[in-house]
């Protein structure tokens, strides 16, 4: 049916995860951080879908379902994350995560 082997998808997923991780580790801007997390999460969703699609008969529906749930989860996460960004900006006037270390004390 399909000519594209699953390894390609997995490679794409790994690349997405790598980009996401790189962003998480290097960005100090909260919004960029959120975007990076979303990218990394998309890697996971892609994996679910790929394995669902290639798992053969019947069993694939669970992976699809997980993907849908994760998409919803990502949306809520962004909502909460942006709310934090707004609050942070109001309180500190900056959205640099390196400065938000109050909880450490």
């Amino acid at each position: 049916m399909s000519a594209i082997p699953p390894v390609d998808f997995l490679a794409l997923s790994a690349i997405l995860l790598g980009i996401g991780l790189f962003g998480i580790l290097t960005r100090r801007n909260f919004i960029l951080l959120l975007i990076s997390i979303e990218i990394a999460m998309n890697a996971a969703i892609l994996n679910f879908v790929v394995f669902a699609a290639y798992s053969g008969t019947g069993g694939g529906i669970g992976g699809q379902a997980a993907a849908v749930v994760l998409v919803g989860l990502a949306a809520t996460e962004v909502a909460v994350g942006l709310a934090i960004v707004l609050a942070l900006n109001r309180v500190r006037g900056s959205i640099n995560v390196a400065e938000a270390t109050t909880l450490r004390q």
Partner: protein
Amino acid sequence: MGALDFLFGWAFLVPLLPALAFVIIGLGGSRMKRLEWGGWVAVGLSFVAMVIGVLIGIGEMLSPGTYTDTSTVWLNVPTPVGPFPNGFSLVMGTLVDPVSALMLLVVTIVGFLVMLYSIGYMHHDRGLPRYYAELSLFLTAMIGLVLSDNLLEFFLFWELVGVCSYFLIGFYYEKPSAASAAKEAFLVTRIGDVLFLLGVFLYFATYALAGGGAGWAAAGFKFASGNGPFLGSLVTSASSPTLTIAGLMMLAGAAGKSAQFPLHVWLPDAMEGPTTVSALIHAATMVAAGVYLLAVTSLFLGFTPTDQLAIVAIGGFTTFFAATMAVVQPDIKRVIAYSTISQLGYMVLAVGAGFTMVGMFHLFTHAFFKALLFLAAGSVIHAIGTQDLFKMGGLRKRLPLTYVAFLVGALSLSGIPPFAGFFSKDDVLSSVYSQLGSHPAYWPFFLLALGAVFLTAYYIFRAFLLAFHGASPRDPALPEAHEGPWVMRVPLVVLSVLAFGAGFFVFVPAFAGLLSPGFTIGGVVPALQGVALGANVPPVYGTADLAISAVSLALAAGGVLTAWRLWGNGRVYALPEGSGLAPVRRLLLNRYYMKAGYDWVGQRAVYSVARAADFVDQFIIDGTVRGIERTFARMSDGLRRIQTGVVSDYAAYVVTGVVGLLLLLLFLGPWIVTAIGGG
């Protein structure tokens, strides 16, 4: 007999009547319109108690026997313990037998008289409700002790009288000396008490299966065990070290309560309490409980010969030892207190020599003349407000009744015939004398007891002459003395009659029945004179060995005369300057430095150990704990540096950790699988 059974069946009421007084006064005494009303409640109820007590005493005289009533199980322990597969139970019951009837007479009569006297003596005191509540509680506990039908109930009430004594000695609690004396009394008797408890355990073990199939201890440590054999008869030889130790523990308990050497120090200090308390508790009843303990132990459990020698030694030595200290005392109450210790020594001596009932007879007469002496002294203190003999003098004219009462008490104490003390003290001496042949080791203690007769007569007449003779008080600042109200005079008269005549009771056959060895306990005839003595010599009361009587009478007369020579007619004898006796006098006044020694042990030695232990606890044990704590704190201090608070750093740690873990599994995983041997 039916009527008597009925009467004895109500014996439990006797302790409950003062208990009722305790509850009424304790709850409502301070709300009564006049504080004396609470006092009259106590007097009234103790009068009813006395009536029943005397009836029981008479009933027991008419028909000697043992009546037990063990209706209440106090504590049932149905679990296997020691030799009892089915456990044991501790009962609360009343036991009326000749010995307890005799004690009951003493306790209820003196108890009522002192209650009555206190109305007058304590009338000015704001703490009157407290006083009567505590005194009623004491009377309850003391009667309970007398009527106990088992060793454990006895111990329970024994502790209760101790705590009542503690409260009453500390009655004037705002005086530091009274507070200190109360503590001392409780502590010193407590030492005796724990040893007593050890003795109970030892008897528990020894007599566990004695007294028939049920077992003495299983049946509740009872003094009379139904139809079982008399327990004392089980002491067959001196070869039982457990029994010997048990007996010594009982002696220790008795020594604490009866203020015998070396646990005597508390009694003179206990004079800090009101004089009425001294009369009731520290002369007539509670301190006699120690002797009573020895008596019931010797009757029901038995002493080994070693125990007997120890008891004789303690008793004989104490008679003399305490009498020497009384000789120099300037305080009228303390003179009588030392005299009490000394007289209790006589009783202990008699019990130790195997003549239990002789000791009990001396206890009986002593209760009356000693209470009389205390109440007379109280009358003096009430009149002039001092206890210092050297401030008194010439009180004969002002206080004629008190004068006569004190004289009767002094003559009785000195053992001058025909006063009561003569009969009982003489019986003690002659009965110990009768044992000297078979027990030569008794000799020195017999001689000490004999010597104490002289000292007794001397010190009591010294006090008597100092207080009452002479022209006028030596301290002119003292107030005019007046006799107390009738409530104080009546007890003096009644006690004077008893102190004079109680000795004649032995000639009344019914009363002698209480003291005679023929009565039965638990259906068998016990060997009253101590089971270890092979041939029992029944004492013939009142007609003692004439030679001994003559010697003791001569000694007593000598004591009186010496006192007259030195102190008569208002003379005040002072030791000549540089006399060789001065150091002796100092030694006696300082009570052989025993009190100072005990204080040193308590305050310095024990307390220093406690302080040192506290140091160890705080700095070594807890220091180790804190050291561990600090080590962890330092470690975490180092580790918390990596907690920068920057989210990205944490993310980096997570990634590093996950990657590290994956690598680890990649390389180590196969190795682990082969090592465990799993699939």
